């Protein structure tokens, strides 16, 4: 059982010969985080944000240029990947193509000079864990397996050794949608069973939310926020986190506070509650509204006119998302299904559930905080 701690980890990337950039770029910019024992952490962020680099540093495939990395209380910053005892699952499966499934899983036991009995026993246990039909995959040549089957072998290869830390680098993003759904559930089931510390890298926030007990959001090598989904959703650290988490994304509109009133997008004006009035500065700011935090009306009133460009039905509910524009800014709103073919609806933000950001930076002025649901 292992906890993983990163202390101010820095990783530089040196430019390739011939590129215009001559200075090294920061792959990881002073990342600090503590991943608790047995916890699953998703790392999410746009391409090139350093999430894979972070995983490689934790695995030892790259070494940090500065900072420390601890497994429990042991400094492993300079320990080779061979000696860290981690298990890693790769996006392209990375199975050894010249070996069958079983030999893929057995490689660990071969290089560690384990006994044949132990190997056989662990292989059997793993096959039982992986579920029905897995023993059939073990005997097959790797290149005859389908993508999903390959990834099952990849995961089995990882758990057969009882790793300290389980690292997954976008393990299911190469699978088709339906299989992805199934494999996702499967991985979650295995993780629950093992209670191994897991770090799961993905660019898909749905996957991150589903997998992770906590989620780390990264951008340009920096850790922007690290917390549960509720923290990230209701109390984002900045505008970037607010717009990354949530589908459809938060709608951001320019607004101006003058006295006790809030003027939104030069189109509507709302009175501010005493609590909000105490927190918000005078002048220009930005208002963020989640799709579910709009009051929707079909006739003109004090609301904002949303020109609907697209209706996206939610088949699990009697509702739909209306995508459109309010004075040129993209806005998404959750509307009841009795607006089937409308071209325009009128929206009024629920200011109790609204987010406020500074007009010229990503700083947060006010967030609603996690609602007390129960």
């Amino acid at each position: 059982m292992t906890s993983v701690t990163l202390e101010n980890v820095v990783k530089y990337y040196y430019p390739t010969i011939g590129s215009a950039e001559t200075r090294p770029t920061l792959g990881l910019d002073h990342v600090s985080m503590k991943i608790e024992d047995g916890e699953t952490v998703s790392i999410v962020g746009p391409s090139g944000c350093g999430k894979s680099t972070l995983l490689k540093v934790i695995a030892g495939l790259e070494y940090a240029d500065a900072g420390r990395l601890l497994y429990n209380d042991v400094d492993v910053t300079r320990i080779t990947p061979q000696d860290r005892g981690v298990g890693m699952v790769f996006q392209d499966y990375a199975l050894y193509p010249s070996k069958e499934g079983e030999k893929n899983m057995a490689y660990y036991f071969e290089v560690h000079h384990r006994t044949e009995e132990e190997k056989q026993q662990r292989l059997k246990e793993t096959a039982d864990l992986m579920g029905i039909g897995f023993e059939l995959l073990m005997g097959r040549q790797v290149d005859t397996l389908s993508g999903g089957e390959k990834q099952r072998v990849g995961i089995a290869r990882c758990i057969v050794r009882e790793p300290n830390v389980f690292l997954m680098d976008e393990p299911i993003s190469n699978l088709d949608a339906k299989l992805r759904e199934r494999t996702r559930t499967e991985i979650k089931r295995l993780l629950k069973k093992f209670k191994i510390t897991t770090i799961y890298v993905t660019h898909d926030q749905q996957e991150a939310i589903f997998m992770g007990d906590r989620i780390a959001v990264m951008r340009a090598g920096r850790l922007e926020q690290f917390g549960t989904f509720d923290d990230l959703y209701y109390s984002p650290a900045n505008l970037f986190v607010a717009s990354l988490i949530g589908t459809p994304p938060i709608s951001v509109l320019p607004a101006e506070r003058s006295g006790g009133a809030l003027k939104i997008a030069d189109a509507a004006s709302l009175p501010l509650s005493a609590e909000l009035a105490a927190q918000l500065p005078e002048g220009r700011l930005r208002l963020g509204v989640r799709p579910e935090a709009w009051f929707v009306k079909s006739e003109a009133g004090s609301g904002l006119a949303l020109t609907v460009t697209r209706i996206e039905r939610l088949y699990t509910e009697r509702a739909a998302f209306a995508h459109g524009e309010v004075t040129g800014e993209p806005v998404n709103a959750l509307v009841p299904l009795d607006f089937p073919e409308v071209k325009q609806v009128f929206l009024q933000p629920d200011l109790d559930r609204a987010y406020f950001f500074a007009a010229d930076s990503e700083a947060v002025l006010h967030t609603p905080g996690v609602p007390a649901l129960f």
Partner: protein
Amino acid sequence: MSLIPAVGRKQFKARLGWGALAAFLWFGVFMHLLPFYIMIVTSITPAAEAMSMPPTLWPAHPTLAAWKLILHISDVARSVLSQPLSRYFFNSTLMTLSTMLLSIPVTSLAAYACSKLIKGKSARTLFIFFIGTLMLPGIVSLIPSFLLTRNFPFPLPVAPTIPGTDTAFPTLRIWNTYWAVIIPAGFSASNFLLFKGFFDGIPDSIINAARVDGGSEFNIFRRIILPMSVPVYAVVAYFSFGATWDSYLWPLVVIQDSKIAPLTLAIRRISDAFGAAGTTNPQSALGASAQMAELISQGLSWNGLMVLGLLQAIPVFIFFIIAREYLLKGVKIQGLK
């Protein structure tokens, strides 16, 4: 066949085109096989008939006499070739196998290191350095290389003396030994390029997975990379075999002693025996030289040379068939999606 689809082939014009194409290709096949036919036929032709004008396409009296004589060449033409044929064969085999044994591991490990283990600027510099050796024609480095075999590590005809004394620097002399052929062929830039191209195609994640599994770098190379790389090893082994087995100029420069001469030099020596006399017909040939006369009197002329040529070609052909098997077997287990 698929160049013109089966349906289209029913049309007259397409048939004509298809026929012309087939004829052209068969002509190519014919032109390639003709020299081999001449070689084989000449090798079973009696000596006098082999030199007659016009040449005969099929001998009047086919005979295996030349084959028997060549197998005992040191008995029948001692002044031309002093060693038994098996000796030249042994020399060629020894040089070729030793070269392969040295050059394939050295070249492939260098390529693997350059492709997967060293990153950034140094890998690039190393790569350009290795490839740079390809830019120099081999003939340019012939004399410096020759001098190096005389007084290694000095590329000088005579080793320099230690300053202030009369003693020469100690040097290593590999000239006129097997090593003179084997060591310079220990690294091959063109094979390096082949290996590197292949290793570059192997995803890093496979190597990373093996590292996480706990394999040492060498174990990863031996247990994971090597089995994946069978095709490229087959290609390189074939190239390397052919290049050393058929090498002529370099052994000619560094090997003097006929006891260690490869088969290529033996063939050249017999060919020279004819060439020096400028033989075009039996009459002029007979009067030309003692060596010539000795060969002819034994019943050897171009036919003997053709026998040697065939003996020289057969191992390369056999090795090609073996390498091809592995090449096809290997293609199936490539790890590339």
